[in-house]
């Protein structure tokens, strides 16, 4: 379901009236504003940038598909000595991959920071940050998904498992950036590289972060499409009309 693309520039066509459903659609839930434009913009910008970072990263990997000092032994790696297919790589050759990777890195960092600053300033971090008190709620949510609990646990904008996922992905993004800098400047930022166990290990963690990102993207997209397709529209236009409550 693709919503009106013009909604970004103009005010939404129908101002929502959450209390009174429209007469012509009495059964429909009200439209509610769910995502600020900063969240939507940074979400899609980051999605594109992440794809570019992964594609160019796999191109760079092509030049030396191992981890560890020359002469080995090399660290365990399911792609040790193996290359990635053409369609998965961006840049064409090592220099092209590096150019893309280093050019996209800054926008990737900046959109990530803009998103975080927005969350802090708007107070929205409260509905996204996974805190200790969310642990029992996450367990209840997991029981519900496993059909071990009958009713959907009460939730605010996001359930506890979503909070865990959206908190974790920010941490993963930060780790990708930090391991990236550790690999980029292992001498000038030696303290940072040492924090990750040295150049070879920093490169290794940087590589693993890719697969955690890929796993996240697969699960994230699958859940959007299978569980709550209306959330896709909400991430494009900002407006949500779906089966899950959208306010605390």
């Amino acid at each position, binding site marked *: 379901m693709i919503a009106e693309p013009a909604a970004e520039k103009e005010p939404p066509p129908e101002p929502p009236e959450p209390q009174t459903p429209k007469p012509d659609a009495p059964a429909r839930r009200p439209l509610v504003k769910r995502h600020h434009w900063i969240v939507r913009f940074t979400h899609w910008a980051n999605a594109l940038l992440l794809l570019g970072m992964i*594609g160019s990263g796999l*191109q*760079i*990997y092509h*030049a*030396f598909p*191992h981890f560890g*000092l*020359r*002469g*080995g032994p090399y660290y365990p790696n399911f792609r040790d000595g193996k290359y990635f297919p*053409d*369609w998965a*790589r*961006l*840049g*064409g*050759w*090592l*220099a*092209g991959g*590096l*150019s*893309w990777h*280093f*050019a996209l890195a*800054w926008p990737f960092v900046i959109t990530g920071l803009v998103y975080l600053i927005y969350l802090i300033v708007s107070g929205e971090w409260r509905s996204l940050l996974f805190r200790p008190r969310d642990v029992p709620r996450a367990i209840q949510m997991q029981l519900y998904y496993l059909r071990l609990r009958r009713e959907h646990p009460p939730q605010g904008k996001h359930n506890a498992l979503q909070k865990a996922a959206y908190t974790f992905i920010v941490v993963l993004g930060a780790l990708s950036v930090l391991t990236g800098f550790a690999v*980029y*400047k*292992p*001498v*000038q*930022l*030696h303290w940072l590289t040492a924090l990750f166990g040295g*150049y*070879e290990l920093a*490169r290794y963690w940087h590589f693993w972060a890719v697969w955690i990102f890929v796993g996240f993207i697969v699960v994230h997209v699958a859940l959007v499409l299978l569980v709550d397709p209306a959330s896709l529209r909400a991430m494009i236009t900002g407006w949500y009309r779906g089966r899950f409550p959208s306010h605390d």
Partner: protein
Amino acid sequence: MTDSSDRPFSRRDLLRLGLTAGAASLATACGWQGGPLIPALRGAAHLNDWVGEKVLFSRHRLAPQYPVSARTPEKDFPAYSITRPLPTTDSAAWALEVGGKVRKPTRFTLEMLQALPRVTYTVKHHCVEGWSAIGTWTGVPVASVVAMVEPTDEAKYLRFDTFDANYYNGWDRESALHPQTILAYAYNDRPLTPAHGAPLRLYSPVKLGYKLTKFLTRMTFTRERPGGYWEDQGYPWLGGV
């Protein structure tokens, strides 16, 4: 050079072909280099060079050193060159010409360089490809030679030329003056072999391997930023680590 009218394609045809191919590969994202976005990528690379040189680099920050026992076995330490078989020279007749924007252009023989105070360190080598290896290098700091030739205020960059085909390289002055940047004549306590750039190569743990020019013949101080064999083809110019 053939006359352009004899060519099967005109320059415009080639350009059009390139743009179409660029757009097509954008659609498939297969090994795409950037097409019309290449100038933007170059701009970003300039920004990164600037950040690397002016913000992140410090001439006083030394690269960590390793014990000799940590050395990578010599058979596992890769050595690249443009020319195959390896370029060689008669080291008795060889000399390094140091000139350009300097007050005292000088010709250094290997004996002259070896008579200067030497530096030996065991450091990690970072290749742009992603591999790393540890080795011991001995030589004379570039800063010592620079002090002898007295560069002028115009000398902002250094250009290094070689007898390895058309391989050359450009450095920022700050990185060249880093105390661990040396003109190396020994690897793992023995004179350099041709594989490692005999008789003299540039070495430094603060740059990627492709900046560590082998088979040196000339060191020239310049006002404008020199290119480089790989840099001209799209590799990062600064190559600092």
